[in-house]
């Protein structure tokens, strides 16, 4: 019977490799402003891993964020990054992409920023199928300003502006994005780090408006007001109550208060992007039209 369950470990401390995520970050700005147990940093890890796997030229990747806790992501990633106004990263990203289609444009913002004040821009960019990836960190609250209700806050959760409990039906963001024409819609929680990174990777490689929703805790406000424990407790709830339902009809994947969370990839389809549609129309109507560059890599 062999006793060699372990071989000899060298006595001297080995050379430590660098943390693979650091080249993606503005290390001179660490530590982050995010609370202990906030999941936004975990989403950033997923984004870093996805960028690495996609082997994109990082000089050509631009990240645009709005205002809020998730909005601070733009300041921490070491890419051309734009921290714009509340609700408006999507139209800024639209201008950035259309003026230089070679850029890979990623919008990272929160549920309130993207679907309350930014709702109009969200639905039109999806409708137009502008070639960009939108990562929505959904923590069901406006964290930065102290935990107000958002369009995704599930009743009867307490928020600072719904002190008696929310009573509005929330958005089902997967359904919204699907209905507006997004070509890729997926949802994971920050407990599903590998799947989240994979979904972001797929979304980045998808041509058109791709939407990844990342359910994340807000321990300081949403969780505390609703007595849901710390960030790690939220992750345990996500792990316990998430059900993988790839391809489920998006109208059925709404999230209620501490309910089951349907995760997975719900939409993955093909549709002409804005520039493709424009080129198609103009090549028929504009004499001597030179097609506008799409920035797409050739389809396999």
């Amino acid at each position: 019977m062999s006793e060699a369950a372990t071989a000899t470990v060298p006595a001297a401390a080995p050379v430590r490799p660098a943390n693979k995520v650091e080249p993606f970050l503005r290390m001179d700005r660490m530590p982050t402003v995010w609370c202990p147990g906030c999941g936004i940093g975990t989403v950033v890890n997923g984004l870093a891993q996805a960028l690495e796997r996609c082997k994109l030229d990082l000089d050509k990747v631009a990240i645009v964020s709005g205002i809020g806790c998730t909005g601070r992501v733009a300041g921490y990633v070491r890419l051309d990054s734009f921290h714009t106004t509340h609700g408006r990263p999507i139209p800024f990203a639209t201008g950035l992409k259309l003026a230089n289609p070679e850029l890979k444009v990623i919008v990272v913002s929160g549920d309130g920023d993207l679907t309350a004040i930014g709702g109009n821009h969200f639905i039109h960019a999806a409708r137009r199928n502008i070639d960009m990836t939108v990562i929505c960190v959904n923590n069901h609250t406006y964290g930065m300003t102290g935990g107000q209700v958002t369009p995704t806050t599930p009743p009867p959760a307490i928020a600072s502006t719904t002190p008696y409990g929310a009573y509005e039906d929330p958005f089902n963001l997967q359904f919204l994005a699907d209905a507006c024409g997004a070509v890729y819609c997926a949802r994971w929680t920050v407990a599903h780090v590998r799947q989240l990174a994979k979904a972001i990777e797929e979304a980045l490689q998808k041509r058109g408006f791709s939407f990844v929703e990342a359910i994340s805790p807000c321990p300081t406000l949403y969780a505390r007001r609703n007595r849901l424990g710390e960030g790690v407790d939220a992750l345990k709830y996500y792990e316990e109550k998430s059900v993988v339902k790839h391809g489920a009809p998006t109208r059925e994947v709404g999230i209620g208060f501490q309910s089951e969370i349907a995760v997975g990839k719900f939409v993955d389809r093909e549709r002409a992007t804005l520039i493709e549609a424009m080129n198609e129309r103009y090549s028929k109507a504009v004499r001597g039209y030179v097609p506008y560059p799409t920035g797409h890599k050739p389809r396999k």
Partner: protein
Amino acid sequence: MANDTAQVPAPAPAAKKPRKVFGLIYVERDRCKGCTFCVEFCPPKCLGMSEDFNAKGYHVPMLTAPDDCTGCNLCGLYCPDFAIYGWMRKAGKETP
């Protein structure tokens, strides 16, 4: 004679292959905010929070069962503060 299994000598256990890959972690102590995501989601459950605390007053993770660490870096993927990461190291090698 149905219960005669006790008479059959137990087969010799299969020789265990020597373990070649180990994991190590590194914690950037003063960046950690003590959220315990890493401890909770470590698959071999080899992490625990320290008794002492860092400059900001947070307890930080440490290997409580270092031999069990596989270097999978799931702790690194979970960490919202980029304060911990793991790597695989082959036995007998100084560098990974």
